[in-house]
């Protein structure tokens, strides 16, 4: 619906800009979900260009990472992607353990796999729920949020915190999985597929939702690779890359699951991939619970990273020494003067940490590779030519979390 510029007296090169509207979207807007800003150039209702701006939540997480020890920093990672903090905890300590060269106990790898997948489900529920909410499907959002509440409840039983879990430790986890937690996860595994069916019935063939998401924000496979997309965003565009399968970490090599892909690359495909991934996550959790091995959750005291149990501290000399040394500020871990990068398949995409060690038990540099930054950077490319109301669908389907964006 372009207005013919003939009536303008301005010279042609200026004329083309004259009737464009500039609209400030955010930083505080219900549909941005968090604090990010878009400066839009509109022609009527059509978006000619968008200029994303970030940094409103910048809190220097990477700088803080150079001053907190490897165990302390896990509390900061909670606050990066706060809709799936468990996945961030796992990612951070996965990278730390790679730098320190620690092999986890089998039970720990399975517990971490289970919580990472539960975090994926809760992340996808929020993302898809919010896409539904923004495109007018309020019931869908409530269904999704009810199930998120159940997962919070599981996490609360597991480690005492619903939201900012800080669950992992170097070489292990803070709490063992009790029978009560396993029971709660099992009951979630039983009830959740029914809700998932309901949710799919609500939206998959919903005319309004399909019209608002199909063909909107199309990302081709070549562009997805060129622009560094990872995770569900890339897989919805036909990139068959999933670190859980390609570079199996934790217990994923022992578990059977499928990598969900689509080829359309639009908002609807991203929604479908996330829905399907939740089913695969359920499969993974179910198998991991079946195979959950016994044994200790932390590495042994010879590794000098995880605090020994109370029994070891009080009844063995090694335990006492290890506990004492780990509590002393000038002792602690043996960190190589090396650097390494390790990544996991977080709900949003590849979440990795590049850690430089210099012998201290805090990182010399703790670089976080956040998937959201690369996804937000491609936003103008996705929205050009679409209407103003499509912004919420595209933003929602990219699942941009400003706290992870700005760090």
């Amino acid at each position: 619906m372009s207005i013919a510029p003939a009536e303008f007296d301005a010279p042609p090169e200026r004329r083309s800009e004259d009737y464009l509207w500039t609209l400030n979207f955010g930083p505080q807007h219900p549909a941005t979900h968090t604090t990010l800003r878009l400066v839009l150039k509109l022609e009527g209702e059509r978006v000619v260009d968008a200029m994303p701006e970030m940094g409103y939540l910048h809190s220097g997480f990477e700088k803080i990472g150079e001053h907190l020890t490897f165990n302390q920093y896990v509390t900061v990672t909670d606050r990066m992607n706060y809709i799936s903090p468990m996945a961030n905890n796992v990612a951070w300590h996965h990278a730390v353990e790679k730098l320190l060269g620690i092999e986890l106990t089998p039970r720990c790898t399975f517990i971490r796999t289970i919580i990472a997948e539960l975090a994926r489900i809760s992340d996808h529920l929020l993302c898809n729920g919010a896409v539904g909410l923004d495109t007018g499907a309020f019931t869908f959002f409530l269904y999704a949020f009810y199930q998120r509440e159940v997962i919070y409840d599981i996490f609360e039983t597991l480690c005492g915190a619903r939201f900012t879990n800080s669950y992992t430790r170097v070489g292990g986890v803070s709490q063992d999985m009790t029978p009560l937690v396993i029971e709660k996860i099992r009951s979630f595994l039983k009830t959740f597929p029914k809700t998932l069916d309901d949710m799919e019935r609500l939206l998959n063939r919903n005319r309004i939702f399909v019209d608002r998401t199909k063909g909107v924000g199309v990302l081709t496979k070549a562009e997805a690779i060129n622009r560094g997309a990872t995770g569900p965003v890339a897989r919805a565009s036909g990139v068959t890359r999933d670190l859980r399968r390609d570079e199996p970490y934790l217990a994923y090599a022992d578990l059977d699951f499928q990598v969900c892909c689509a080829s359309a690359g639009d908002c609807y495909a991203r929604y479908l991939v996330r829905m399907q991934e939740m089913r695969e996550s359920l499969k993974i959790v179910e198998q991991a619970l079946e195979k959950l091995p016994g044994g200790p959750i932390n590495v042994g005291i010879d590794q000098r990273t995880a605090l020994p149990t109370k029994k070891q501290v009080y009844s063995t000399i090694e335990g006492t020494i290890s506990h004492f040394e780990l509590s002393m500020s000038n002792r602690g871990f043996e960190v190589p003067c090396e650097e390494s990068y390790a990544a996991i398949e977080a709900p949003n995409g590849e979440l990795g940490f590049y850690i430089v060690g210099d012998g201290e038990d805090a990182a010399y540099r703790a670089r976080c590779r956040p998937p959201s930054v690369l996804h937000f950077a491609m936003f103008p490319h996705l929205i050009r030519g679409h209407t103003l109301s499509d912004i919420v669908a595209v933003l929602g389907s990219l699942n941009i979390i400003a706290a992870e964006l700005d760090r």
Partner: protein
Amino acid sequence: MNSFSDAPSDSATTCPHLVALEQAFGSLESSLFRGQQRVVVPAANSFAALGLLKDRGFDLLVDVSCVDYLEYRGAKHRYGLVYLLASTTSPDRLTVRVFADDPEPTVASVVPLWEAANWLEREVWDLFGIHFTGHPDLRRLVMPEAFTAHPLRKDYPLQGRGERHNFPVITRDHS
């Protein structure tokens, strides 16, 4: 299971990508740590080397970041850029290091190769002050435009230099 065992030390010479790089740019410093292959490329050749690697199948630029080695024991250079490359068709990964020094740390931008580098390089410029030549839009990414320092440098204190207190306050009368 995590498996971080190092491959034998002679694998550095057998990595085909390294062989191709050395054919093009002469002998390069490379190392292997916990299965992660790393190679140092001179700053003058960084764009050509990364272009060569892109043509050899590293189609995904995972990350561009930087480390300030100001207080690092035995470091020869001040800034070390980290290019993490991966492939969407094979499990290969490669870490390319490019070093830069004061007073004008400058590296060629790889935005012409990967659009993904656009914001990543803007972030490095913002937080470290590395200048990327050929970058289409080198503005600050996370810090405000008026900010003058580069806060992830090691000589920048954790609590800042008082910028927070000098921040202009918008009052009701002047809003």
